[in-house]
């Protein structure tokens, strides 16, 4: 454990030096700059879907509207107009940024559009879970220098790296927080003698408890409930990957592995519990699976970097 903390400490303290090193690699900056329009285009697609959905059949009614602070100003309008304003801002902002992503002004408008639309969608009694993960990454993208149409110097490239790392680190923070909370509550339940996150039937209990509330059977959920032990490695694996996401962010060779496993986490979420998170899915793919760092690394080198089990992997691989 101490070794792990030392490694994490070294990784985070070395982060400005990491930026220095990658700033000399032109390819990394180019990859980041190429990725940006796709991020905005995905949000444009989501904005268009949201706009069409609201115009066809309003998802909520005026009586359910309880504005959160960011969209308090929308209460000055009739509900129909508030819908139109919120969805239009999102659509216009992402449309502009998809076309004119090279200009910071367009990126600011896109951020505002998402921010207000998310606030609007969170004003019906519960936070909107899907788009939430995009807010901070979009905020960080505003700080990218406008360098698409000109040659970059080292300082430009460092600025690009910082903005992109900011988005990646945010992803690391939220997944690790989710992991820490599961571990925390797991120990509490363990001490209380209850079923907990380490129990062999933990995943089966989640599925059996959740599926009746959604009313639709999932593809492999019933099978896992019938054979709880099969769900155990999946659940422990999920805990491991969530917990160490922030560590993986500071180890560029791990980005790809973590991205793939987090995508699998979302796929299994759907297969077992019928839960879909499209927005998070795309963001993980863009920021981690297609991470611009260490793309040429070999699988063995990636695995060796894994926290806690890296040495074991290295030993087994050598054998």
């Amino acid at each position, binding site marked *: 454990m101490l070794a792990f903390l030392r490694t994490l400490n070294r990784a985070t303290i070395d982060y400005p030096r990491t930026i220095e090193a990658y700033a000399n690699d032109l390819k990394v900056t180019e990859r980041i700059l190429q990725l940006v329009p796709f991020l905005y285009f995905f949000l444009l697609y989501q904005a268009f879907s949201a706009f069409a959905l609201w115009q066809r059949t309003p998802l909520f009614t005026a009586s359910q509207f309880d504005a959160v602070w960011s969209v308090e100003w929308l209460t000055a309008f009739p509900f129909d107009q508030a819908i139109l304003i919120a969805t239009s801002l999102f659509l216009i902002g992402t449309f502009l940024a998809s076309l004119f992503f090279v200009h910071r002004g367009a990126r600011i408008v896109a951020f505002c559009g998402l921010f207000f639309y998310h606030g609007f969608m969170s004003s019906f009694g519960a936070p909107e879970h899907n788009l939430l993960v995009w807010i901070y990454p979009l905020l960080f993208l505003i700080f990218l220098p406008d360098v698409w149409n000109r040659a970059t110097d080292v300082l430009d490239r460092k600025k690009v790296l910082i903005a992109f790392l900011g988005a990646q680190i945010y992803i690391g923070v939220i997944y690790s927080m989710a992991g820490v909370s599961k571990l925390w509550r797991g120990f509490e339940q363990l001490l209380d003698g209850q079923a907990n996150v380490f129990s062999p039937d933990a995943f089966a*209990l989640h599925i059996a408890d959740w599926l009746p509330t959604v009313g639709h059977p999932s593809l492999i959920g019933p099978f896992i409930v019938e054979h709880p032990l099969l769900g155990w490695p999946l659940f422990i694996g999920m805990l491991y990957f969530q917990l160490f996401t922030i560590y993986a962010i500071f180890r560029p060779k791990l980005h790809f592995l973590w991205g793939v496993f987090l995508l699998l986490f979302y796929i299994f979420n759907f297969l077992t519990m019928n839960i879909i998170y499209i927005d998070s899915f795309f963001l993980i793919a863009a920021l981690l699976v297609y991470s611009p760092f260490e793309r040429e690394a070999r699988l063995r080198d990636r695995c060796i970097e894994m926290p806690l089990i890296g040495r074991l992997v290295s030993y087994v691989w050598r054998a």
Partner: protein
Amino acid sequence: MSHTFTYRIRVWAIPSFIVLYFCIAGIPALFYLGSGGEKYLAYHFFVFTEVPSREQVTYAVYVTGVKGETIKPVQIQDADTLLADEWRNRPEYARRIEEFGRELSREVRGGDAQHAFEDLITVRPLSYEIREIRYNPIKRYLAGEIISERVIGSFTVK
């Protein structure tokens, strides 16, 4: 290598952001976990934090309709709403159940529960029976098996 002032600010903005984000959203949410406080802070990170217990308690309302037939049991998730002081005041309790049923029928995602509530409001209820059901989620899911079921209250609508 020269570094501008704004560059230095940018470099240290990220670690500061991590610390602030965790302090503002993460730490309070960890402490408030389970009490509802997390809803306002970082709710989305903390879903499925608690593993469901192997022995759970739920409450079902069995309603007898105007023609005498027994309508499908309606599962009540929020037992506290029903089993509060209103229990002692039966007309008020009946109103609460109907309100709760209508409210839940709007929010509930399961098709069966939706139909059950439609039955409840289209057929004039004559009597209600509240039962406490203890079950293991896995056994109930696989075989509909429950540990115990007991009537904790009933009344007739006047």
